[in-house]
């Protein structure tokens, strides 16, 4: 990067917030995606939205690429840049407003997801999306990736809550879309297009999300199933009984064994599946729903069923699910966490595909995840130094993705395409899908300077 160009960047954000030393560029060369690294040319931490506008104008003029980055917990390589400018949003972290009359919150992109949770919950309100990284993930990143979380089944994902966006376009112009109105049919709906655009269409500087009243009560339950098929049937039966749990999480046999070895929470090693179920809402409804869930689990031969009586007990029941990733990740140095997603009626079939693929390529895959919404996390435990095993792991995942597509599912439920899944996207959306996406990219960013090389 030219020294004069770097000086211009420093003039915008200040010397302290312009990083170009080798050490910094090396550690901004990764995010949470395994196996992928690159080196940016500079990293900037703007403190105000108008600095973002000036950065975009400068880079647009100079033909330098810009990659937005929050806390760098992306799982598809989406926040990496090769030679361009990385703009980290962390200092743009003000919660601008919580509007209790319109039930909205407006935030800057660097606000941490759980900080927004705390703020709105202190006012009896609720922002449901809760990605696994919510204690550090940023709202900007959540919107750009359309993050999901444990509560997706009942409450939906980030896209379901985004009402308004302020976006800096590639040439530095500002685009305002949506706002605080529930109904708005003026022109094309651009919000859904910008949500999950993975930083390729614009840089968010303001985000307005919908809030809902906080559920008054919650009941947590845990069920063990000796047979995998029964657990899958129970999931379907719960939904068919018109109970939509806030959380309906699943652990498979490999994960159960790892959790028990690591956390000793008293899981039996002879069961095939464990379900963690939480229902929330009005106390009377919650009690009814919990009773229905208990009955269904019993009907489908759960060998153990427990309802938490206190908050402490609820926490204990949730331990197995909360420690699933830790328990798996400790086994081997490299952890490849995927998010293939299928219609929930196909969960049992998908689990079989995963098990078969693991056996065929002799790799260890533990699966846990959001059984209620079909979003599973097959997690391959491997070692990056064993290139042969890594190859086999990718071959196994290729089969898993192809099967997900064949079942009417998707290659990624919540992590995004980024660099990691580019190869699979055409298989899912076809030539016409890629053509339309390219056209949209062209309309927003004709010079191709925003997060290039991602998605397709």
């Amino acid at each position, binding site marked *: 990067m030219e020294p004069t160009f770097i000086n211009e960047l420093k003039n915008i954000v200040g010397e302290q917030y312009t*990083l170009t*030393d*080798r*050490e*910094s560029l*090396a*550690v*901004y060369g*990764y*995010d*949470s995606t*395994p196996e992928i690294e690159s080196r940016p040319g500079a*990293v900037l*931490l703007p403190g105000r939205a108008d600095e973002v506008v000036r950065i975009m104008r400068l880079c647009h003029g100079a033909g330098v690429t810009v990659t937005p980055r929050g*806390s*760098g*917990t992306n799982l598809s390589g989406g926040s990496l840049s090769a030679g361009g400018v990385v703009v*980290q949003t*962390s*200092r743009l972290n003000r919660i601008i407003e919580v509007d209790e009359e319109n039930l909205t919150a407006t935030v800057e992109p660097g606000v*941490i997801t759980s900080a927004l949770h705390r703020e709105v919950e202190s006012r009896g309100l609720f922002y449901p999306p809760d990605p696994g*990284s919510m*204690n*550090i993930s940023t709202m900007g990143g959540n919107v750009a990736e359309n993050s999901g979380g444990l509560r997706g089944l009942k409450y939906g994902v980030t896209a379901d809550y985004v009402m308004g966006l302020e976006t800096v376009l590639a040439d530095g112009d500002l685009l305002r879309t949506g706002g605080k109105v529930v109904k708005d049919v003026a022109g094309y709906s651009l919000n859904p297009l910008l949500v999950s655009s993975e930083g390729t269409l614009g840089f968010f500087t303001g985000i307005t999300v919908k809030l809902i009243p906080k559920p008054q009560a919650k009941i947590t339950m845990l069920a063990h199933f000796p047979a995998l098929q029964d657990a899958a049937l129970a999931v379907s039966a719960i939904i068919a009984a018109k109970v939509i749990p806030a959380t309906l999480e699943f652990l498979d046999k490999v994960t159960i064994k790892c959790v028990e070895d690591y956390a000793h929470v008293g899981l039996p090693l002879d069961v095939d599946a464990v379900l963690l179920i939480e229902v929330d809402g009005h106390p009377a409804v919650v009690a009814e729903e919990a009773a229905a869930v208990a009955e269904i689990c019993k009907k489908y031969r759960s060998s153990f069923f427990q309802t938490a009586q206190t908050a402490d007990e609820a926490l204990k029941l949730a331990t197995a699910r909360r420690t699933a*990733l*830790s328990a798996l*990740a*400790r086994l081997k*140095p*490299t*952890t490849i966490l995927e998010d293939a997603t299928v219609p929930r009626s196909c969960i049992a079939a998908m689990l079989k595909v995963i098990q078969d693929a693991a056996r065929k390529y002799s790799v260890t895959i533990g699966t846990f995840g959001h059984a209620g919404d079909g979003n599973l996390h097959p997690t391959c435990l491997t070692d*990056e*130094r064993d290139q042969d095993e890594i190859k086999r792991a990718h071959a196994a995942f290729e089969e898993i993705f192809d099967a997900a597509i064949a079942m009417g599912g998707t290659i990624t439920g919540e992590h995004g395409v980024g660099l990691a899944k580019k190869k699979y996207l055409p298989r899912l959306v076809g030539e016409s899908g890629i053509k339309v996406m390219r056209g949209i990219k062209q309309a927003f960013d004709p010079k191709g300077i925003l997060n290039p090389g991602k998605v397709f």
Partner: protein
Amino acid sequence: MDYVKLINCMRCGMCLPACPTYKETFLETASPRGRVALVRKLQEGELDQSERMLEYLSLCLDCQACASACPCGVNAGELVAEFTCERKAESGLGYMEELILRKLVPHPDRLESSMVPMRMYQKSGLQKLVRKLGILKMFPKPLERMEGLLPDLPDRPLRQEIQEVTPAIGQERGTVGFFLGCVMSLVFSEASRATIQLLSSLGYRVITPRNQVCCGAPNMLGGDLAGLKEAAHTNIDIFAGYDLDFIVTDCGGCGAELKKYDHHLEGYEPAEKFSSKVRDISQVLALHADELRAKLKPLAMKASYHDPCHIAHCQGIRREPRDLLKLVPGLEYRELNEADACCGSAGTYNIARPEMSNRILRRKLDNIAASGAEVLVTGNPGCLLQLKKGLADHLPGVRIMHLTEVLAQSMASWHGCNNL
């Protein structure tokens, strides 16, 4: 360094919200996963030991909050410390380090004598005069900061005063060895006196071997692994001379180090035996909560607990101190926001990196102010020093006490906490 420990980091970022320096700077280089990556890239040869690299790594407090947060058991703080040790092993200790770590710290007599001029300086009124005239401004900055941190010293270090054997009060239930931390003995001797008192009133015979030496944590901090091992051997031999149920300490830093002797001297059986007996005082007291409750008298205060890193993150002890405080009748317990975040003391960090230390301290003080507590309770002398000064400067209405002082004060038999 074991390469596997470095590649175990999957860069998930769970450590970022736990790391005090990341929270202040938002810089990847100031984050645990960033530090692991830097050390890894050093080993892989992509980066070298530049001044800047060492500057980045030395910003780590080694508070190990990242280790508590890490899903895969990576301990970035420890990895950075290990790296520092390896570097020191290659380059050798500097003259001052050699003097302090080898000639002073391992010898309690010398360490205590070194404090005599300081005590005289305080008692003679010279300190008041010096502070008034601003004479310290003429000395190097670190000296001025050190002088400012030091509270009034007790007349004599506890090690010189305490009997080697304190008998149990009432029926004897067992014998414990008391590990006397250097700073506790030299500066917070009243708190350690309270610790011994509590143990003896619960029926423990307390043995405080006079020849015990520093736990070795300063050596580890200075990158002197050999010095640490020497200290470990000395202490293990001394305590092996008694038949003990536990080895108790009221210093979080010592406790964390003593519990790691078995790790430092891997395969050495006496070290395993020693480490397995080490307990923080709160762990032992919590065993006898009901008995303790019966002995406590009302103490009206709003109190909050600050988790020392060496107790919460290094030893995993969080519940016991809180449960013990809640035993005190009349004590209104207020939970502190970010209670287990470092206070910025971190060994000598507050002297070496005052700017970052102060930012971290201010965040802690803001949380203390928000809690509405009148008394801040904690269990580690480093935190006591740092927070005592911070509170005096910015929140004069809040007092700081060691956990054992609160409990002992609540017991009718004990009077005064004149040191704090």
